[in-house]
Every structure is written in C-alpha cells, then in structure tokens.
C-alpha cells in the first residue's frame, strides 16, 4: 500500500510541516503522517506569529526557503514591527493571524509541493534496524518504510490535560494523545522527561465591552515576514489591552486548593517566562494587576484569545475571575484554559543536525526537544527536514553557527546545555544580536540554502539584487556631498547642527535622529539619486552605515570566538584519559560529545579550567 519513502515526518504541526516541505523541496520523497488531517498546522496556543526574537526566526526560516513566513503573511489580520524605537537589531515583526486561514494556507502549500504525501494515522513505533531508523509502524497496523524519520510529536506523546481536578489524556483539548514512541525509545536507552505548558480560555467576542479597554492597532505600513512578494492585507483587526485587579486575584486564589499546579498533580516543569495567571499572582503577590491581551482569532469569527490568562484552575473559577476583568462583565467562555503535560527527550541526546546520537537517521524537532513556540518548532523542523534529506543522500548536514542565525543559537543551546523548562528564544541569548537582524536574514542565509538546492532561483536573485543595490547606495552615500544651503532647513527641523561646509551624506547620516528616508525626501538632489532603489535596500544600506561601529565590534568578537569554534574535538576523543577533568565535566563531555572546544565551553557545569585542560590535552 505504501511505496518506499525517503523521509517520513511524524506529526504535522509547525515543525512537521516545515520538515516535510524542506525535505520534499530538496528532492526527497516525503510522507507526512498526522493523527488528524483536519488539524495540520494548528496554532495550538495564541493566534500570532513572530514577536521579539521569534520574528527574527521566522524571517530566517523564510530566507532559507521555509514556508512559515509566507503562510504568516497570507493569513495575517494585523502586523506590527515591535521595538521600532530601539536599534535595528531589536526591530521584531509580529503578526496576529487568522487561526483557520493559517492552517488552511499551510495545507494548501503542502498539497502544492511535489513529493509530499499525506496519511492520517497514529505512529506507535519506529522501525529500527542495525541502530538505524528506517520506517514507522502505525496504529492501524501499517509498516511504512523510509530512509529517515523525523519525529515532531509536539505535546502529543503521553499528553495529559488538566483542568482543575479533572485530568484526561490528550495531545490538545478534544484530541487524542499518542502513545508508544516514548516507551520504545526509552527501552532503547533514550532519556525522556515531562514538561508542562498551558493555554488561556477562549471567549465570545460578542460578550465584551471594548470601551473599557485600550485599543492596539496594527502598523500602517505592513512589512511582513517573507522576502518574496506576498500580497499583504488591505485592512487589519485591532487587539485590545485590559488588566486584572485584586478582586480577580482573590477569586483565582479560591481555586488554588483544586489547582493541579499546587496539588502536585502536575509533575512537568513549565516555562518561567510564560507563567500561568495563578503562578503570576502567587509568585508576584505585590503586583496589583497583570496585563491581558485580547486577541481576535480571525477575520470571520467572534472567538477571542485572552493572552496572559493561561490557567488550569477549575472552569467555574476561571469564569468567575474573568467576569471581574474590566470589559469582561458579561463574558461567555467558549473553551476553558487548561494545562498539558507531555514527554520530551532532553535535547543533549542530539547532534547539531538534530539527528539523535543513539539512532542514525532519526531526527527530532520541536516541542519533543523541549522548546516552546511555533517559531522555535518551525525552524527546527526546517533544519531536521534539510538534514534528514542530506543524510539519506550521504551529504554533509547544514549546521548554522551562533554568529549566523538565531536558529544556530537555538540548536547549539539545546544540544550543549539541554533544557529543563520549555526553551524559548530571547534576543539576549544571542551573543551577536547586532548581526542577527530581521532585515538581513536573506543576506545571511539565502545563499547557503540556495547552494544546498532549497532556496529558489527567484529568492537567490532577489537577494543578489538587494545586496548589489545596498552596495551601490552605500557607495553613493560615501561620494555624495550635501551642501550647507540645501541641507539647512532639513537639519534645523531635525534639531541637528547646520553644516558649515559640504559634507558626505554618509557622514551626516551618522548623526542621531537623522534617517535616510526623510533626508532624501528633504533634499531633492539626493532623492533623485536614490529613487530607483527599493525601500528595503535603502533601509538596509542605512542600517549598515549608521550602525557600522557596532556591527564591526560584534564581528571582532565573532573572530575571537571563531578560534575556539574552529578547534574540532575528534569524535573518538577519550575523555577518561583526562583524569584532571572535574567529574561533572567528564560526565557531560562523554554524554554530549561536543564537536568543538567552543561548544564544550558552553556546556552547563563545565568550568573554564575544564576547557583549558582539554585544550592542553588536545594540543599534546
């Protein structure tokens, strides 16, 4: 019934979809197995993509030829570029999405991708021969063969849902949990553990009084996520902000004795940065209120997502507490919030290619690796899909460096440090934040992917065009001089000192408060010179000129760091020979088998002296 596949992807969430698309676009014959064809690319949590650090990841996915950016652009109902007032490394695209349109767009794009087959069934176990994954066995009893398997099980492996004292198996509310894979892998020596995450109630937008809330509108100018031309919506929907208060908190506290969090029924560790509302009022008792974001779920639905009110308290407590929130006096709940516990495999068991160390040709991506977030999952899926394909063709894996992409930071963090709580990306995790901007992901990554055969010709050409345009503009700014008279009015309006003699435009651009767009508008001679360039190119050139000092500072550090990053540790290095290593470092090194001294130095529990000792030993 089934042909021999190159790659089987288990699970069709954000990670699974990207994995299937990437492997297929590279030329692998792919089967995407999902328990429910109706829930491909579900946004299980809030209907939004991007945000700080996450938006950068989506742009990286797009630059590499993944689909998340395009799907987000096609299904957005609101777009905002966050952190505009800060430096360009902080600018972060964020979209509010139509939940149903998002999933439908993904499915449509996958269906239009040659080489992707679909099958609805539960995978119960993997076919493993000679330490190598070569297929899956499904709940309906089919054995399907492939050269590589990518597991993207999300919250489904032995998922348990909690609402108050109620507790039942499930991968999402109203969806069955998956069983079998954890047990099989544990019997093969894998370590597994439990994590927890949660989601807030979804409510009826018709029951809200928006006059009591603050409106949060989208940007007038939608930048979007994809570097390709994707049509953007012509209208947008607003989000709203309201706050909890002490009455709300008091009501929530009445449910604590029935909270699965506090009665010990939940064992999994939840993310500190995505706390439930009960956690917020418990740990930060002094705060009188907490912010709630009221997010519409789509163009054609009244359903609303109450971001900031994640909870697993009993339904009636959720309801009573929500009613005390300004604007929520008449609220009706569609679906209560809940907490979910699921299995993950500590990611230190992986290689940088996301292939497991224990079993060849088996790849993991997404929440199964202990991460949280659609963007984090999607980018791992993309990398796992690429590397599964590469592996089946005996080609080198694609491994991004920490200085090249947030994706590189994420995977290196997971593999070197592991994670004990759901891992979310922050810009502060990146050493080279100034280099890893949302505006230059194409310049950083597209060529790499194009050489691999993933990024399309069109994508590559656009990137080259952008790069050339940017270089031309930068040259122009260094040769084009502004006359004192023609720039006088402009500089005065910008509260900047008038020129006393002519000065190069690039020099003037370095002044605080001066930007290329307004300058070329105010000075027609300059405007004439740059008018043929796209806003994208102009912005890129401006950033490169204006923040050159900082960009160079970081490049210096990259250079310094490269010394350690380039020192490869042989695969068969015998750590036991190095008796002077601390016991903890010895155990960690043996388990994680760092590829480079740089990676060794980032492993938790490893001291500088351990790395020094290693270096001395390797030098001998």
């Amino acid at each position, binding site marked *: 019934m089934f042909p021999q596949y190159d790659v089987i992807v288990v699970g069709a969430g954000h990670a699974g979809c990207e994995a299937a698309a990437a492997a297929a676009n590279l030329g692998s014959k792919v089967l995407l197995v999902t328990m429910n064809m109706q829930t491909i690319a579900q946004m299980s949590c809030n209907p939004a993509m991007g945000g700080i650090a996450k938006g950068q990841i989506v742009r990286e996915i797009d630059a590499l030829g993944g689909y998340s950016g395009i799907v987000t652009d096609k299904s957005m109902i609101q777009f905002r570029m966050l952190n505009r007032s800060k430096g360009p490394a902080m600018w972060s695209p964020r979209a509010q999405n139509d939940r149903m349109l998002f999933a439908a767009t993904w499915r449509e794009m996958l269906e239009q991708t040659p080489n992707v087959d679909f099958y609805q069934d539960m995978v119960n176990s993997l076919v493993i021969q000679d330490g190598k994954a070569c297929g899956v066995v499904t709940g309906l009893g089919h054995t399907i063969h492939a050269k590589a398997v990518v597991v993207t099980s999300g919250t489904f492996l032995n998922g348990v849902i909690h609402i108050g004292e109620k507790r039942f198996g499930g991968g999402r509310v109203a969806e069955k949990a998956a069983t079998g894979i954890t047990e099989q892998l544990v019997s093969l020596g894998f370590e597994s553990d439990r994590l927890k995450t949660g989601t807030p109630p979804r409510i009826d937008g018709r029951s809200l009084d928006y006059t009591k809330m603050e409106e949060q509108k989208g940007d007038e100018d939608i930048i979007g996520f994809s570097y390709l031309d994707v049509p953007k919506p012509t209208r947008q929907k607003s989000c709203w902000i309201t706050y909890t208060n002490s009455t709300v908190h008091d009501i929530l506290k009445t449910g604590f004795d029935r909270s699965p969090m506090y009665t010990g029924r939940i064992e999994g560790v939840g993310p500190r940065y995505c706390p439930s509302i009960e956690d917020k009022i418990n740990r930060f008792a002094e705060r009188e209120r907490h912010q709630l974001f009221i997010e519409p779920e789509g163009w054609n639905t009244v359903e609303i997502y109450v*971001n900031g009110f994640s909870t697993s308290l009993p339904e009636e407590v959720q309801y009573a507490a929500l009613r005390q929130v300004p604007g929520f006096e008449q609220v009706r709940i569609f679906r209560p919030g809940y907490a979910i516990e699921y299995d993950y495999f500590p990611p230190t068991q992986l290689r940088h290619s996301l292939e497991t160390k224990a079993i060849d040709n088996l790849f993991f991506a997404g929440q199964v690796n202990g991460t949280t977030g659609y963007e984090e999952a999607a980018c791992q899926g993309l990398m796992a899909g690429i590397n599964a394909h590469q592996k089946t063709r005996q080609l080198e894996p694609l491994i991004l460096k920490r200085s090249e992409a947030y994706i590189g930071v994420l995977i290196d963090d997971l593999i070197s440090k592991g994670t004990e709580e759901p891992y979310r990306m922050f810009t502060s995790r990146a050493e080279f934040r100034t280099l890893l901007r949302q505006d230059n992901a194409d310049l950083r990554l597209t060529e790499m992917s194009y050489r691999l055969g993933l990024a399309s010709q069109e994508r590559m050409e656009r990137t080259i065009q952008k790069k050339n345009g940017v270089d031309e503009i930068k040259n122009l700014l260094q040769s084009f001089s502004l006359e004192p008279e023609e720039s006088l009015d402009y500089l005065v309006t910008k509260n900047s000192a008038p020129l006393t003699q002519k000065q190069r435009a690039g020099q003037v651009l370095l002044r605080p408060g001066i930007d290329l767009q307004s300058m070329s508008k105010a000075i027609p001679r300059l405007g004439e010179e740059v008018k043929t360039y796209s806003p994208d190119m102009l912005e890129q050139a401006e950033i490169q000129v204006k923040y050159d000092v900082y960009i160079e500072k970081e490049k210096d550090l990259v250079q310094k760091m490269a010394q350690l990053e380039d020192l490869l540790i042989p695969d068969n290095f015998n750590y036991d020979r190095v008796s002077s*290593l601390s016991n903890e470092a010895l155990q960690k090194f043996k388990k994680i088998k760092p590829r480079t001294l740089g990676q060794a130095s980032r492993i938790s529990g490893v001291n*500088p002296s351990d790395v020094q000792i290693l270096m001395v030993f390797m030098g001998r």
Partner: protein
Amino acid sequence: MIGAPGKARVRLGEVVVLNRVLAYLCKMLGKLTGWDDTIVALATPPGIGAIGLIRVSGPKTFGIVGGLFPAKDLREQPSHTLHVGLLKEGEETLDEVVVSLFRGPRSYTGEDVIEISCHGSPYILERVMQALLHAGARLARAGEFTQRAFLNGRLDLTQAEAVADVIAANTAASARTALHTMRGGFSRELRDLRERLISFSALIELELDFSQEDVEFADRKQLYHLISEAEQMTSALLASFRLGNVIRNGVSVAIVGKPNAGKSTLLNTLLNENRAIVSEIAGTTRDTIEEVLNIDGVLFRLIDTAGIRHHTSDVIEQIGVGRSLEKMDQADIVVYLFDVADPIAGVAAVREELVAKGKPFLLVGNKVDTAEGAAARGRFPGELLISARDGHSIDVLKQRLVDQVLQGAGAGDGTIVTNARHYHALQLIQLSLSAIRKGLDELLPGDLLALDIRHCLHYLGEITGEITTEDRLDYIFSKFCIGK
C-alpha cells in the same frame, strides 16, 4: 555575551583568556609533560631555619614516603591527619619529622600530597630529599606544583597567577599583594562590580525582550551613577598597576647629585658593604651600579650614578654622565644628594628642576658630619640632612623611601594590580565604560547600550573567570513577572 538554560561559565572572553593561559603555561612551566610521576621539592626557602618543609605530590606519594616512615602504615591513615615519627632510610635515621597527609583531590595539587616537616638544617633536608629521590620521586621543576594544581582544577587562573607571583615575590610587600589577590580581594571587588552591572544589563535586556509587556524600565540615572563609580574604581586599579609593578619588580631609586656629593658612600652605607668604589677624586664612579635593598618588605633597586657635572672633558666620564641622566629618567624615585656646603640658591634651583620633572624625589643634604657641614645645618631648614659616612639619619632616609612608595597605595591595604593581563583587561573595561557613558549621554537605544555593557562584562569576566548570560536571565525571571 551573550545565553540560556544551564550554566555555561565559559564564554567569548575565555577565548582570549585561554590563549593567554597557554602562553602563560608555556612560559611558567616550560614544556608540558605527563604527570603520572611523583614530584618532590623543598617548600621552605633554602638556608638555615627552624623547620624545613618538603612537599611530595603524585600518585606514588604514599608509597614513597610510607617506605621511609616505618612507625605507621601511612596508606591506612585518613586524609588530613598529622603523624609524628622517625624518617629512616634503611637502618639510618634521617630525622624526627611530622608528616601531614592530604589525599587527592582534596589537596593543593589535587593529587595525593604529603608534607614532611623536618628540622631546618640544610644537611638534614638534603639527606631527606636524597632519600625521597632514591625511593622514586622526581625533583619538581619550578612551578610544577602549581601547574598540577591548575591542571587539576584546584586553582583558577587568577589564583594560579597569584601563586606564581608569590613564588616570584622576593619581599614581604610583594607577598602581601600577591596573597591579597590569592584570597580574592582583587576579584571580589571586580566581581561585585560585575554583579551590579549584570543586574543592570538584566534590566536592559528585560526592556528589550519584554518591551511589549508591562515591565518597569532600567533607570538610566542609576546606571549613570554606577558607571561613574565603576570608572573611578578602574582608574584607581589602573593607577595601582604602576605601583603593583613596582612592588613586584622593585622600586628603582636613582641616587644623583654633583660629583663627590657622596652618592657612592650613601649606597655603601645603605647596603652596609663596599659595593661602589669610593674615592676622594670627583668622578670616580664611571658606570651605574645597581644593588637590591629590602626596606620594610619593599624591594628597592638602588642605582648609583656618575655625578652630574655640566662640563667634563674626560670622555669615559662623559659616557657615564649620559647614562646617569638616562637612569634618572627611568627611575621610580630620584634621591638627589647635595653637599650641605653647597650654595642655597643652587639647591633651590635643583629642587625646582626636580619638581618640574614631575617624578617622586627626595632632596637630601649630605656631609653633616664634617665641620663645614655642621656649620651649614641651619641653612636648610626642612630638608633631610644626613651623613652618608657615619650613618646619621640614614634610618629617616629609609623611612622616607618607603613612604614615597606607599603613598601611591593609599592605605597600603588596598588592592594593587600587579598582573599585566589584568592591567590589559582593565584598560578594555575602562574603554567600554566610557562607551557606555557616551551612549547614555547620547540616549543610545537599549540594545546598543547593552552591547557596550556586554563588552564590559566580557572583560570583567576575563579577570574573574565567569562569563555567562544565564545568570542574567535568572535575574530577570526571579525579579519580574513577565510572559503572557
């Protein structure tokens, strides 16, 4: 620079540190060899003392020493215990000794260590050493105990360097600063600064990563205040480097003055020996002479110089004079010796000249023991007057020299930077601090400010050996209610 769950303590800065570590190891320890063998060395200074300490370290320590210690089976004894007994080679009793047992890894080197306290006679010590070598130990190379301690993770880099300094320390003052570093005084101050900076950087990161949420912002005024404080601290530390260097390498003192002012006599008196040729003929000293003198634990390198005369026809002497002027410029302290019989105006002119040079100096009148000198005493109120020949007021001069040195150290107990690596990192810290301050002045966006703070933290980490960003995230999560 700059993290994530887990505690990665090594970061960017370590790259630089590591390179230096290697250079340092090579320099200090020579070629690295395996450390499967057991080494022995005399741990107390050579010479006669009440007690001599011999230290043995390595896997065979207990076997080797135990073989010479018939009273008990040392291998059976617990770690960190003392045992009295006779040390014997064959039938011959070498000495009655106390042995202190330290089993690895809880020892200085991290290996099995035994310290043997013998009586301090050079003969006994030599015999014991010979016996240990016969029994299979190897003579340790300079710094080899520290090398092992370092490689076994018992010392961090700063500590290892401090130990190297202690080994190199010739004098008490130098040992004091080295010990101060070893006990962590220096790192403590910087660690404190680093921690305060981390909490600020955490606030700024919070502002960046969670700007969409209801969080408080980092108070720029407080940061400004912290930066100013940090700048003061680093400049003080940087300023102490010269002094630290001076303490480690000795303070050079140029004794200058006109020919026959008694410079060489003074040198001899200070050293209590006839080092320089002394004669009545002006211009006898044709070369500079260097001698080392320890006053109250401060090491002085005394430079006697050929007298400064403005006209000399003797070619050899001319060369000597040129060299002494040069020495005067290189010296840390100048002692200008004049003859109390000299005209007052001349001495006043010399004082002006010395003040103009901007170098610490002592103006000292000599020859108060002569008849003319005795008569001239009243002409120089306030000046230090001595007799190099009979030693009159030499103690006062010595005290003034020590005072000159310690002036720069404030209370004398303050942290003094002696290490070139630390000095270099401190310079970079200062640069990044001024970049932060400039950024604050120009209302730079938080991420760029954070970049400079990261740099500063990075260099601080080069000294304290801790560079991580996870603690920053921990700080954020423990202090703030964030996340939707």
